[in-house]
């Protein structure tokens, strides 16, 4: 055997060996897509407008409060779209407003006096900052929650530089629960009750309004809360007048965990950070006997009466189930979302569906493979074996490359492999047909093989480049499963060119080398 033949043989052996080692055993080495292993794929959008709105409200509070502290008692402010319109500031006190803006609002806001009014406007940079901050914080919060819940191998990424986040969670048993968990804004506030002042709720909104003579003061608002029966079912609504400002928020919590209350009912046990504890202690100490409303996402969970000064820890009670306190503790620990989120897309595949798909794909692939092998053997006789070997190596290389590059195999990806099996023999067919033609033209076996490979090469390259172009556009366009298809198709193209041109040529040369003169080729 000549040296050249040996080296080529060794190269083929190395490639196939690497592929086989990378991919074996298949079930451990091949990364299955969510559509095959089961799992959730969520695309969600952070409602940046919420974050902007809450930033405007914060800025407005800040301006009014600080200006009053500076002695501008007549100041009034209201929100108009994305502007804050301030009135009641005499022009000679503009320096105070300027200072508040520089000290507390920074570059986020521009301001200008127009006659009697001062108009604050969000700058483009400020807006971008709020948006990026909101998305970043949402990403972090969701990551915390998913990890705390305990999902293996989650993928949580921002989609480009957009307001969208992609969450991929393989093998989730209870998609409903985790969907709620992620979406839960979990903005917790403690606010003082104003009516009923000693805690608890009122049965109707009218009752609350009547207490204020039909119009609640600016610093008070009416919130709703559920009334539940002992089994935890919602049976009605209660109304609470509470202060607009919160005493402390979820941001001041250090920890929260599920626990049991005095009647063995599930409650959430929380502790405050040092600053939170100080402030909470101060307020509760000064308001013994008054109600304290626990507000979660603008709904009152409960409004117990403050019986003593509370500083560093407390419990949240509210007719929860065990699962609810677990989830609430988890979201409180992981922090509130900076803005609401909306699910734009959801694809959840149960594991049993995925298993069915694998089984069907495998069966279709094996049958397809067998049929193609049969045709090649019938049409090209012994030379067909050459193509069959190339085809088999092709499949090994495709799986090897999938495992080696950590690519994901999806259901359309399986279809891509099956399609590759059908198309991979094309390069062989091109060569074999050419060899036949050359033989008919009266060439010797050896020169027919040489000519066959040489002349078919241009067609093989053109044919495969065009398919590759299609695969590239597919990859560009596609999401998860479709990308998997583009990937297997592309790998299949490279593998089939390698096997049909390099491996198959080597097999021919091997046959030629073993015999001195070859008179006849079984083709």
């Amino acid at each position: 055997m000549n040296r050249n033949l040996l080296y080529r043989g060794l190269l083929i052996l190395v490639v196939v060996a690497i592929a086989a080692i990378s991919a074996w055993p298949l079930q451990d080495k091949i990364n299955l897509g969510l559509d095959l292993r089961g799992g959730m794929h969520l695309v969600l959008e952070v409602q940046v407008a919420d974050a902007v709105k809450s930033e405007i409200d914060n800025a407005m509070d800040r301006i009014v409060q600080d200006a009053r502290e500076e002695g501008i008692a007549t100041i009034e402010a209201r929100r108009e779209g994305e502007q804050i319109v301030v009135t009641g500031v005499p022009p000679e006190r503009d320096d105070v407003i300027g200072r508040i803006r520089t000290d507390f609002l920074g570059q986020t806001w521009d301001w200008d006096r127009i006659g009697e009014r001062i108009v604050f406007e969000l700058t483009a940079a400020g807006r971008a900052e709020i948006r990026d901050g909101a998305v970043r914080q949402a990403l972090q919060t969701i990551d915390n929650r998913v990890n705390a819940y305990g999902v293996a191998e989650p993928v949580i990424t921002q989609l480009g530089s957009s307001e969208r986040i992609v969450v991929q969670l393989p093998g989730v048993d209870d998609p409903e629960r985790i969907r709620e968990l992620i979406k839960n804004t979990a903005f917790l506030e403690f606010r003082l009750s104003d009516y009923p002042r000693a805690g608890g709720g009122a049965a109707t909104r009218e009752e609350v309004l009547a207490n204020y003579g039909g119009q609640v003061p600016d610093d008070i608002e009416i919130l709703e809360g559920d009334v539940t029966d002992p089994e935890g079912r919602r049976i009605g609504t209660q109304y609470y007048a509470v202060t607009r400002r919160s005493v402390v928020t979820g941001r001041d919590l250090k920890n929260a965990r599920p626990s049991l209350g005095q009647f063995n009912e599930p409650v959430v046990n929380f502790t405050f950070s040092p600053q939170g504890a100080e402030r909470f202690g101060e307020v509760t100490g000064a308001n013994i006997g008054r109600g304290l409303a626990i507000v979660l996402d603008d709904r009152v969970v409960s409004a117990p009466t403050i019986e003593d000064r509370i500083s560093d820890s407390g419990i949240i009670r509210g007719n929860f189930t065990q699962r609810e306190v677990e989830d609430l503790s988890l979201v409180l620990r992981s922090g509130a979302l900076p803005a609401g989120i909306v699910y734009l897309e959801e694809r959840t595949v149960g594991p049993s569906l995925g298993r069915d798909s694998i089984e069907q794909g495998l069966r279709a692939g094996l049958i397809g493979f067998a049929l193609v092998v049969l045709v090649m053997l019938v049409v090209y006789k012994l030379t067909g074996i050459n193509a069959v070997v190339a085809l088999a190596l092709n499949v090994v290389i495709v799986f090897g490359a999938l495992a080696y590059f950590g690519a994901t195999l999806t259901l359309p990806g399986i279809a891509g492999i099956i399609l590759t099996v059908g198309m991979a023999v094309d390069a062989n067919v091109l060569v074999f047909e050419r060899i036949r033609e050359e033989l008919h033209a009266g060439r010797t076996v050896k020169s027919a093989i040489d000519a066959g490979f040489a002349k078919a090469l241009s067609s093989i390259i053109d044919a495969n480049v065009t398919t590759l172009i299609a695969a590239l556009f597919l990859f560009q366009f596609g999401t998860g499963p479709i990308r998997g298809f583009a990937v297997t198709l592309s790998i299949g193209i490279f593998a089939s060119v390698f096997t049909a041109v390099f491996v198959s040529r080597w097999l021919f040369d091997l046959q030629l080398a073993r015999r001195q003169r070859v008179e006849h080729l079984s083709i």
Partner: protein
Amino acid sequence: MEFFRDTHIDFMKYRRFWIAVSLLVVAAGIFSIFVHGRLNVGIDFAGGTQITLKFAEEVEVNRLRSILADAGVEDAQIQRFGEAGEHEVLIKTPTAEGTEEGSRDPVVEAIDGAFNEGGGTALDLNRDGVEDVADALLAADPDGVAGGGDPETARAHYEGVADALIEVRREEGLIASWEDLASVPGVSRAAFEVLRAQAALGDFTVLGVENVGPQMGRELRQKGILAVVLSLVGMLLYIWLRFELRFGIGALMATVHDVIIGLFLFALVGFEFNLTTIAAFLTLVGYSVNDTVVIFDRVRENMRKTPQKPLVEVMNESLNQTLSRTVLTSGTTLLAVGALLVLGGDVLRGFAFVLTIGIVVGTYSSIYIASPFALVWEQFFASAARGRRKGGRDASRRASGRSEAAARRSRRAS
């Protein structure tokens, strides 16, 4: 075995006839798809919710329909899914503009209310996850591991037990009866009895949910159209670069032809047009061009070998020479795709269908559309333009092309 040894079929003879036939079919296709709007657009592009449910027993589609109607879920399409005896049902609902999250919750709640007594407040082994089952077991502690020891160890123990039980559901989709759980390895009799007393086996389970909001649907639609158009342009550019413009035009025409006829038949059969379908069409584009390019490659080779021969004859000769390859490659690919069509399951059926059509029509168009169109293009536009610009450079070929036409005319006249 050789099918087509040394054939001399005059493929180009009836080129005008075949182009006319194809144009008619394409026109019918365009009318049917775009004017009639016959395409069954799936939720990927239209927006909507698709829920796959598995029931413990056979369920009447009409009963589901009235349950959903009573719950105010409108325009739900309900169909059976998967193999017979699996009791699987697919529910599809459209989504209104502006509501991105779809009808998953109302649909599942309505069915839960109708099938499971008490509306699912109890632990349901067909719906709840390992965590919940482990919680219930930990509270009852049937294996007596919670007392004294480390709580984490006890939790881990019951999570293992819960996982073994839920694995039955992962395998089967739905736990149909308590017997299925009676002999799960790693689950003690006591643990089984606790669950049997406390938990329920719900009458249905949610196998899968797909929801695409209208916003996402719109974006996917735009991206899909763009991908197909750009890939066509990409193909045209490649062939233009590698061959000549007239071949590029021929290949493009053949491919557009295949795509439109593919769409037409796809719409006629009524398969759902979704993301996988777009993938199938892009593959069809690749395959169709692939098939054509091999023929053009041979045409180019023969043009160089015998520059004196009229293009029509060169094309005929090349088509005959590559016929065996064309049929064989189409045949093997068809076998593989056919296996997928028959055995690949519901999800891939539409995909395999498009490819099947693509292979058959693509093979036809490579022979009867691509080359003839390149020739027609040459005769109608390019030859005149080039004649004006470049003078006599390509005169011989062009002249022979003309003389062939002239000869035929005179033959007909005589």
